[in-house]
């Protein structure tokens, strides 16, 4: 689960981790009042959307207005807020349609000496959370990793013992931080590592992490994502979710326990297992088609959830044919077959349906479909299924 920058900074502030003073504003008046309240000679107005690249992004229809802007007066803060609020901000991560700005963060400016990068993720390789820092703050960190990997320094840490003091000192040495700044960095880094574990985060990224002219380490930006699997023990975090930032079909699928990603093509896919779902997409492309989605119904889904999956697929106007590719293990073919009948009853099929069933309870599942009056193109094996659905989508 992703959250907004202002929410992430709120969590940091509550944990005693240094962030600039800031106020959230949802109208130009609030932005003006926020500037006055912060009392500084300068402030920064930042659009709040779930996407990176806001500083270089521009408002749709107003290419002069960027997503992050320095302001020097309350009136200026209000004017920038007016340009941003209610409009779509287009960045390299949003796609051309952009994302609507519903709030801005008005933040006190600070005097920047250096900009660094800091990130925490769980590293599959060593099986531990890892703190990464780089001297190249503010840059696209993937570029740094590709071009100058020697500028990234990593320290794994045990979730329960946390990041140790010597690890901070080593990283500071690598970054060239000295004196009181080391103590400030220690408080920041150890605090953030602790928070990462406490909240079951999957990603915490501070880019840039700033060293101020007075030598303090402070988060100028903050991005935190949480492990969806751990949300059961963090009920308060669920309130931070902003559904308007997410694809509606993906939200619907998530509520039904389905893993769904919207794509651009016209062949709807309903598959069990992430690997097979990805392979099914690969296969459709290989045979000249374009998948409309990735959909993994998982193993434990019952008839209701699978029926909902059909509803989501069929509600996509781009979909010209649907491929059901099931290799039952924990998922039973009978569950899928019953869901096909249920979906047919509830929504009807307005596009051709190609079904390939194999695995647990396959004979029973096939029988259910054969004995029904639903019009189905049945397929034997992967290639046959892909060819038939590509042909069906092309003919539609």
């Amino acid at each position, binding site marked *: 689960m992703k959250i907004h920058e202002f929410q992430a900074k709120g969590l940091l502030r509550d944990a005693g981790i240094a962030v600039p003073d800031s106020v959230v504003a949802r109208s130009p008046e609030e932005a003006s009042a926020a500037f006055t309240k912060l009392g500084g000679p300068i402030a920064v107005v930042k659009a709040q959307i779930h996407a990176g690249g806001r500083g270089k992004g521009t408002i749709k229809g107003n290419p002069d207005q960027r997503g992050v802007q320095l302001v020097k007066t309350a009136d200026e803060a209000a004017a920038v807020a007016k340009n941003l609020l209610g409009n779509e901000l287009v960045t390299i991560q949003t796609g051309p349609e952009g994302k609507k700005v519903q709030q801005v963060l008005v933040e006190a400016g600070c005097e920047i000496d250096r900009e660094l990068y800091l990130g925490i993720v769980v590293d599959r*390789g060593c*099986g531990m959370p890892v703190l990464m820092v780089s001297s190249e703050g503010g840059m696209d960190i993937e570029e740094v990793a590709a071009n100058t990997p020697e500028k990234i320094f990593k320290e794994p840490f045990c979730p329960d013992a946390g990041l140790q003091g010597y690890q901070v000192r080593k990283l500071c040495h690598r970054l060239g931080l000295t004196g009181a700044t080391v103590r400030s960095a220690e408080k920041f880094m150890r605090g953030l590592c602790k928070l990462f574990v406490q909240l079951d985060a999957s990603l915490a990224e501070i880019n840039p992490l700033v060293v101020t002219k007075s030598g303090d380490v402070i988060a100028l930006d903050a991005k935190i994502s949480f492990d969806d699997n751990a949300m059961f023990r963090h009920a308060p975090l669920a309130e931070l979710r902003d559904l308007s930032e997410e694809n509606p079909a993906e939200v619907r699928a998530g509520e039904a326990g389905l893993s769904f990603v919207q794509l651009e093509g016209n062949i709807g896919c309903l598959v069990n297992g992430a690997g097979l779902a990805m392979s099914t997409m690969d296969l459709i492309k290989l045979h000249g088609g374009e998948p409309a989605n990735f959909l993994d119904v998982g193993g434990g889904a019952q008839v209701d959830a699978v029926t909902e999956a059909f509803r989501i697929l069929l509600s996509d106007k781009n979909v010209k044919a649907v491929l059901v590719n099931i290799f039952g293990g924990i998922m039973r073919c009978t569950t899928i077959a019953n869901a096909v009948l249920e979906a047919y009853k509830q929504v009807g099929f307005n596009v051709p349906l190609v079904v390939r069933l194999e695995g647990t309870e396959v004979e029973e599942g096939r029988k259910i479909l054969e004995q029904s009056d639903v019009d189905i193109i049945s397929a034997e094996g992967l290639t046959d299924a892909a060819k038939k659905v590509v042909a069906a989508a092309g003919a539609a």
Partner: protein
Amino acid sequence: MSILIDKDTRLICQGITGKAGEFHSKNCIDYGTNMVAGVTPGKGGQTALGLPVYDTVVEAVEQQGANASMIFVPPPFTADAILEAADAGIKVIAAITEGVPVLDMVRVYNRIKDMDVHLIGPNCPGIITPEACKMGIMPGYIHKRGKVGVMSRSGTLTYEAVWQLTNLGLGQTTCVGLGGDPIVGTSFIDLLKMFQADDETEAIIMMGEIGGTAEEEAAAFVQEHVTKPVAAFIAGRTAPPGKRMGHAGAIISGGKGTAEEKITALEAAGIEVAQSPADMGEAVVRAMKRAG
């Protein structure tokens, strides 16, 4: 021989009284697996599927000589169940449960990595040695005893490969689904070592997917240490980038993780890479022919 499990394996199910645990335990018994007990805390003294149910794994070990466990308990309790099994002296654990918090697995992984135990999963289909022992949720009928070792990060993709092999007349020694989570107990390299050392295994197929560097590491290991023919498939060639992995996730792996990079690494190591998921069985045949 085979790896990890065989007809002498004494299997238990943690979570046998749950719906999925019971259904799949029954399928394992029907397949001919030597299941000796179930474990559900608070339900000790009951029976399930004609097997004794214990409150603790240690009782199942002491009273039934259990040495393998498949775990079906809900995600919040899975880490505890794995540690309980390892502590009780179980040698092979398959955690089927999907949805275990990553940091729970970090703790489990680091606790058991130096213990004498093999953890498969979580979020995996389990392990099967065809015609001897089925320990997991895979459909039994698609398998056939033979000489190909099968390993994969994806459950259903494993079934797909096995089905293709069986239809080509190629049986399997043991099939292992490693699990799709970021942190799992066993790696491709762990299994490559076992398959290389297993007399009955004559060829190996691995199914990987985008993300992480497990396939690249496996490729390097194959080049150095594996003399048997190896085939592979990578799922996710056409997946849109960045949809599931955060930015920093790609960094850790130094920009690696795309299907193309993985395929290049595999081919450079002399591995026969299937170009389509429908070509996995044939890729094993080609790898074996190439090796003579």
